[in-house]
């Protein structure tokens, strides 16, 4: 519940650059465009669930539908 964990979030659509200010510096963002749909994959560390839900609702606010949220594992500390 309140452990730091690495999350991988996939959503449909492309990222607006200005949105990066919400993210910590060590997040990676990858945008795949296979000509049928643009999928953005965001990977990084969230410090707890409040931060994760905050991040997801920001995605909701900018209108990027969520495709998948996956916890890749908790990190020590």
């Amino acid at each position, binding site marked *: 519940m309140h452990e730091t964990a690495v999350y991988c979030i996939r959503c449909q659509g492309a990222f607006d650059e200005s949105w990066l200010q919400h993210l910590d510096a060590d997040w990676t963002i990858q945008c795949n465009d296979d000509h049928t749909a643009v999928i953005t994959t965001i990977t990084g560390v969230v*410090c707890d669930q409040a931060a994760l839900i905050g991040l997801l*609702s920001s995605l909701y606010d900018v209108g990027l539908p969520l495709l998948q949220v996956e916890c890749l594992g908790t990190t020590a500390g």
Partner: protein
Amino acid sequence: MGILIDTKLRPPRLHPGYTTRPRLLAQLDRGLAQDLILISAPAGYGKTSLAADWLQQRPALTRAWISLDKDDNDLDVFLRYLTTAVHNAFPQQRPCAHTQTLLNAPQSPPLETITNTLINDLAHLPHTLLLILDDYHLLTLPAIQQVMAALVRHLPDTLRLLLITRIDPALPLLARRRAQQQLLEVRAADLRFAQAEARAVLSQTTGVEVDEVTAVLLEEQTEGWIIGLQLAGLSLRGQTDQAAYARTFQERNQRLIMDFLLDEVLAHQPPAVLEFLLKTAVLERLCHSLCVAVVGEKPSGEQPSGEQPAGEQPAGERPRLDDIARAGLFLTSLDETGTWYRYHPLFRELLLRRLAQEEWGPAEIAALHGRAGAWLAAQGFTEAALRHLLTAGDVDTAVTLIEDRRHEILDQGEMHRLNRWLGLLPQEVVARRPALLQLEAWMLRWQARFQPIPTLLQQAESLLAQEPDSVAGGSVARAILQGERDALRAEMAFFQNEFQRALTYAQSALDHLPRHYFFAHGMAALFQLLAQQSLGQTEAALRQLTIWLDDEQSQHPTLRYLQLLGAGAIYGTIGDLKRLEQVGQYMLKLGLAEEKPLTITWAQHFLGHVYYHWNRLDDACAHWSAVPAWRYQANFRTYHEAMLGLALLHQCQGDEGQTRQTLDTLTQALLEMKQVQFAPEVEAFRARLALLRGDVGTAVHWTQTGAQPIRQPLWFWEAGELTRVKVLLAQGTAVSRQEAAALLDSCQQYAEATANVWRRIQVWALRALLAQAQNRPDEALAAAERAVRLAEPGGYLRLFVELGPEMAGLLAQLSARNVATAYISDILAVYSADQSPNPDDLLTDRELEILALLQQGLADKEIAEQLVVSVLTVKKHNRNMYRKLGVNGRRQAVAKAKTLNFLP
């Protein structure tokens, strides 16, 4: 403030047994060095209690607390709470007064204006303030988030922000702040209760010492989650083998621990308590008598209902709130006196979910809301009552509540509240209630959107005709509705120049409306007065005005505002500038004391008008210039008039750039505020100003293509007809003079019929100029004399000066014939002062220097060399100079400077 509940603006009180947490308090103390503190964790982690404890232990911190509810997710409501909370912290200074007046504006200003005003207000706090927003995650509205984002981005030095939230907020640069340690965070991991703390809490909740094994088990199960621990503690009560009980938790791991715990806790409650908890969960805030109203005096076992679970026979009285709070059932006291409480939000959510699952059906739950609504309505908590009533589906009671209170709120001038109440109702409900349709008409009037009003009134009328008396509330209610319609129609008829009809409506409204309906009755009285005046009955109107002003009831602020408005309208129309000045000064004092922008701006316009005509241009400028800052709060008419006044003033001072800019701003504003009906007046005014700077072509173009403004009673600036006459005179052909003569006849007829001295002065002065142009000197002098005689009591100076040198000639001749010599010499003094403007007032020394070099034909580069400045600097000076002179190039600048005697 009405919608506010004071208990929302202070932190909830801590439970007597609250365990203080020094480690976290120290963490928060460190946060004061940063400007933003975030307490972010899921529900039930003790966030609010921690903040409340911190504040209690740091009494020296100036704080403003807001407990947010889901109903506060509305920009207007949120900002009202925010500004009120700040004012509670600084009651003397009231730093957010300006933002509050914006919230009361008839049309919402753009979000950016609100945001900037708020940030600006908050930048002027007397000293550091900690602003705490509890349950910040409930504010999901994009508009609120934008305001908060801007506030965080431009956080004033004197503001510290503490956000308590279940979800990380979408604020700008949060990640960067975190990285740069400009943000203090207290998160779930920090809030988690360690084993020792957990044991203390469990023992405290259970009432007996809890052994260590049990504490460790429960701490692991709940992950140090305080509300879970408390629930666990509650369910431990009366268990003989605590550890064995705690182990059963593990076996039930499949289920949500929260539901399980709640089941356990509720299962141990006596039926009366259980029923009380579930039923009162519909309330956001509880006090004893509200609970009694909702739950009923006696437990439901004694009521004839079959809802009681079999085998349970409750006895005795209702549980009391303080008992429940003492039993640790998540009830928090909200005030010193122990009157108001609220459930822990998470506990309440669980209870509500349970309530819906229990044997109570939707009808019974609706009945709870209905009873809550009835109690809240009776206590004057109208908005909370409306929400409960509407949740209960009891639209009729909600409607009646609004209808019953509408005049009281209209009288208080709190239109935004009525507007929000109306907005809570479905449109089809409004459409079948005459009183609500008419209330909507009042709201439209407030927003200066008159066009749909007649249809609404018509609809109300036909509904009333169809319905039997009982539905519309009987004959008294019918009379009041009739009075309201007549008052609204009186105003509309008046501005359509149908004064007789306006008078009839106004009188009928006065007959139908009780005198203590200050606003509606006052509106009728106002338009009775104005209609009388415009029917030529000046004596009667003045008599009526005196009676009205002496009325004992006139101490009511809304009524006094209407009376003073009426006085100003009449005095300006009959050319009594001295009385108009008195009214303006009185209103200004009153408006400033009451923080009423409507009053302030009318006062400033009245004073601007008086001082302009008395040629006290600096005073006029000071008053008119104050109006644009209140653009959204003012009546648009006031803003419009003051802006036209300012444009004219700049023109008199020869600053044509400013003149143009002022009119452009006005045009933009009327587009933005959807007040395009003012556009023809602005266009006519542009033509009038064009004439003043000798640009007849532009003015003529307006007469050929521009829309003619509607003829207006009273003393508004732009009477398009008179400007048209001026243009025709400037054209100077026999045909144009003939047309001017015809137009003047019609203007004169209107001015005489409406006993409008202000208009008559202008008509006679223009008649004089026309006769002069037609070579009829005697007639010209006679007309000029009429104008002078009419204008002398008011002391108008500028009105004549605007008419140009021909007028000065006529005045001089009159003076030579001993007509009003002292007055005329005052007017002529303004003429000669205007003729030789002081160049220093307009242009800087450097600009005059460059002007002289331009006259010599030097190029910018040569000028730059001679003055030892850069070419760019010269160009900049040129631009400024052109703007001030209202010209487009160097040749025009030199020519203009010559006519102004700035250059030889």
